[in-house]
């Protein structure tokens, strides 16, 4: 059954190839998949490519973890304590929509142009997504489970870990799915400023000098990374939520 997950990307590629071959679209801006893959094949032979990939994946992972863990923690807190909710949620709804460009000077001030600044940009984006989705996840927990804990007078932090956290996991996983995507998007922005390597840098670079095929190779890699991370999240979900295999809540 799993093969079906390849059908739709293949259909998209075939249609795109057809459209490009028939000249229905400017291949100068939208090169045919065949041309992209030719370029891809050429690039994977270079050392530069693997360097870019490694650098980006490391930035992604580090930024992701730095953002996701506190994000989930804050989301849980907001879900559990209505005081925390009332204190934090206005800040989140105000800061979250600020374009990351606005944060750049601040980030440069704090981290300079080191790797840390890239982690920070990714982490900030991931943080908000995780906080909001985890909060939603906690709210979605059947109140009876909190009642059990409250009745037994179980200390707050244990409730946090044994009821709110596992109960919010479905929401957390949806958050992770969104956050991996956002992390990739932000990485590309982060690598525009002050980077000298990385996939995002390469995409920008290719676009700036109008190496369209190379830019698309970069985008294809991003897409594949997105797919890989989403699959990983799915795998984790199936592994860590055995009680959900039967469905329901």
């Amino acid at each position: 059954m799993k093969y079906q997950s390849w059908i739709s990307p293949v259909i998209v590629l075939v249609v795109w190839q057809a459209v490009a071959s028939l000249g229905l679209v400017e291949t100068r801006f939208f090169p045919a998949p065949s041309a992209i893959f030719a370029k891809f094949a050429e690039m994977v032979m270079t050392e530069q490519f693997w360097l870019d990939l490694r650098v980006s994946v490391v930035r992604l992972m580090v930024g992701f973890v730095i953002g996701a863990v506190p994000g989930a923690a804050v989301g849980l807190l907001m879900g559990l304590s209505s005081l925390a909710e009332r204190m934090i949620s206005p800040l989140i709804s105000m800061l979250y929509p600020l374009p990351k460009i606005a944060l750049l000077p601040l980030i440069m001030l704090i981290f300079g142009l080191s790797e840390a600044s890239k982690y920070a940009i990714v982490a900030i984006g991931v943080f908000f997504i995780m906080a909001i989705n985890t909060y939603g996840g906690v709210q979605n927990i059947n109140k009876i489970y909190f009642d059990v804990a409250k009745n037994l007078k179980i200390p707050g932090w244990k409730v946090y870990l044994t009821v709110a956290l596992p109960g919010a996991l479905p929401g957390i996983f949806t958050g992770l799915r969104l956050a991996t995507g956002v992390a990739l998007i932000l990485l590309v922005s982060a690598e525009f400023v002050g980077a000298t390597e990385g996939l995002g840098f390469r995409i920008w670079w290719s676009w700036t000098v109008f190496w369209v095929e190379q830019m698309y190779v970069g985008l294809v890699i991003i897409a594949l990374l997105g797919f890989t991370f989403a699959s990983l999240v799915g795998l984790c979900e199936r592994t860590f939520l055995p009680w959900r295999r039967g469905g329901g809540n």
Partner: protein
Amino acid sequence: MTSPTAAPKVSIRDVCRTFSVNRQVFHALADINLEIRAGEFLCLVGPSGCGKSTLLRMLGGLDQPSSGTVSVRVEDSRRPTSAIVFQQESVFPWLTVERNATYAVRMLGLWNGAESQRRVDYFLERCGLSKFRDFYPHQLSGGMKQRLSIVRAFSAHPELLLMDEPFAALDEQNKLLLQQEVERLWEDNKISVLFITHSLDEAILLGDRVAVMSAAPGRIKETIDIPFERPRNLLTLKSTPEFGQLYGRLWDLLGEEVMAARKDR
């Protein structure tokens, strides 16, 4: 077997509870006055929807009266004051049967290795769940989930056990076994029990007293002492005329209420 001491375990004074439904005030409980004596086994019966669960949640610290006071006397602050067997499904879906069973004990820091394990194992065995230790709740039947929540509450070793129709989803034999079990637990540990049930047989079999509630807004209509000596046996009891009388009295009290509730409608 009843050993009421001077100070009541639970005292409920002039309790009212209203809910707001579609901007109207709905009276769920009106003017409840009730005591549960220390070490008493009190059964609570009443028509469906009369406010039994609402009252029980108040004793368990999960709800506040709109007016009046509910107080539960705490004796040993290390043990949980109360443990509820909820009417609805309440076992944690993310824990296996075994982890669910030990949850209360572990979380309260009362776990002391072999002894605790032995206790939990014992209750699991009694509730017929030993074979299902590693199952997750979604792999259990309705009755099994109910039994699991009984194990969780029993092993929490509370001072006050609050049971909300705990045996409703059980077959007659399992019910019988667990009725004996809860009686044993109560006798051995001198705890107090509030036991909500719809089965008059069960109420008479288990209770020191049976409180009868009226239809919504719930009031305590009458409290009846059960005079039978323990240990009691349902079959033997049923053959006595007193049982028939008690049963008839409870039946009539409840019947009036159901009729009264229907008339309003």
